[in-house]
């Protein structure tokens, strides 16, 4: 399928982001962080915990405006952004389907979502409230919400954290299925190297605080060929290039 509309890549050029603590101590979280995600590409930001990945994402989502530098989001097509947060962040007082539809612009509110719900295995759960879902199912609903909006760019903030490995693996495959149906420029934050190698076209490796880009690791192999043999090869060459990153 054709990637929709987007012609400009995701371009990030953050000069500095500083947090000031209550006592007036300032901590530089990001410094000279710049990278690019090509249009229609799935990229991962890989780095250790607490290295400012989520901060970067919050800046790109427009939730944190207190930084110096600039970034450019993919333009064209819908111009919308979508996010899958660390927590599912579903409204507990609305059903799964209402949660998904509320995120849609008015013109798309009535659109047919059967296919998306079927793919994500949520067909029977559209009228349930989030409290009635397991964490895994709630995350699927959060994925459904993000993909339903047909965004120009998709941000994912460790969407599979605190799930057991089996559930996380199932969800990764589901993510790939819905993503492949409509390849969208996507940026995912993760500290899980295997996850990054399995999902992405390019891995942007971050150094710890103040965060900057250590290097970029491109995975050119199509995803369907990434079996366990290939994965261990990828892992080895990754470790060869970035010996300090685990």
């Amino acid at each position: 399928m054709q990637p929709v509309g987007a012609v400009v890549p995701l371009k990030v050029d953050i000069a500095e982001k500083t947090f000031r603590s209550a006592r007036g101590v300032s901590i530089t979280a990001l410094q000279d962080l710049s990278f690019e995600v090509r249009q229609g590409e799935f990229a991962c930001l890989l780095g250790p915990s607490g290295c400012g990945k989520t901060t970067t994402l919050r800046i790109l989502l427009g939730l944190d405006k207190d930084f110096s530098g600039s970034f450019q989001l993919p333009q064209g097509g819908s111009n919308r952004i979508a996010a899958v947060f660390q927590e599912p962040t579903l409204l507990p007082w609305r059903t799964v389907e209402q949660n998904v539809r509320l995120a849609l612009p008015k013109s798309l509110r009535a659109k047919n979502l059967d296919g998306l719900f079927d793919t994500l295995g949520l067909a029977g759960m559209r009228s349930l409230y989030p409290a009635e879902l397991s964490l895994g199912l709630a995350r699927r609903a959060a994925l459904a919400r993000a993909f339903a909006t047909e965004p120009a760019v998709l941000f994912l903030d460790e969407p599979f954290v605190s799930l057991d490995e089996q559930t996380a693996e199932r969800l990764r495959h589901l993510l790939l299925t819905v993503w492949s149906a409509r390849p969208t420029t996507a940026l995912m934050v993760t500290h899980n190297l295997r996850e990054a190698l399995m999902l992405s076209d390019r891995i942007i490796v971050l150094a710890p605080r103040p965060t900057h880009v250590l290097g970029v690791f491109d995975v050119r192999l199509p995803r369907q060929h990434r079996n366990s043999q290939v994965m261990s090869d990828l892992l080895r060459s990754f470790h060869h290039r970035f010996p300090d990153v685990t």
Partner: protein
Amino acid sequence: MTALGTDGTRDAPPSMSGRRSLATALVPALTVAVSLLALCLLWNLAASVWPSRAFPGPAQVWQVLLREAANGDLFYHLGVTLGRVAAAYIVAMIIGSVIGVLLGSYRRVDRFFNPWVILFLNIPALVVIVLGYIWFGLNEAAAIGAVAVNKIPNVVVTMREGARTLDPSYAEMATVYRFGRLDRIRHILLPQLQPYLAAASRSGISLIWKIVLVVELLGRSNGVGFQIHLYFQLFDVAAILAYTLAFVAVMLFIELLLVQPVERHATRWRRRPA
């Protein structure tokens, strides 16, 4: 242990659970009826031990109630008072909620206006009513406004607490997905504030109707408060009690038929407590 019991009914055969749920539905209603009946008997007993014009028994009060209902006075005055209660309630809830949410969301604004809130919380209802009538005349707007001003600070305090508990992650989700202003209020803000709205409403209605009576007593020529004032001058305690109990009954029906169903609907997404 009670949790086990209620779970147990779910596994029981359908006929059994049906009968048992009917019984569990009836028991609280019966308890209320028996409890009220006991109160009436006690009242009757006391009235016959100390017979006095100032302390009529339930039978006398009932007779006055029937008389007033038959000539239409009762429903007219109940209706007028109920209208004032509703108007003051709506005005107080809307203005109080808006101010409360603003104060709860902006700390600097709160710091500045907090003394005002404390001041208004502590102005006696009577003073507000008297000043209202002096400044704005003996009219309906002054009456309802005075009642609302008495209630607004309470709503502000409750809703301010509510606004402080708002979860920013929902607001951020709404920003990312570009929710409109109305959608934000309806789907993000109000559901989070619902328990606080319910608390403010509950304490609000009972407070408001008591103040409405004072307003009617001081400056209106109809309503339950006016009637009570009239019968006070005639020293007719039976009529005073008749009007009071009739209005309490009205408020009880509002609680059962309006407030509770609305609340059940608003909290349908919460898991039922075991």
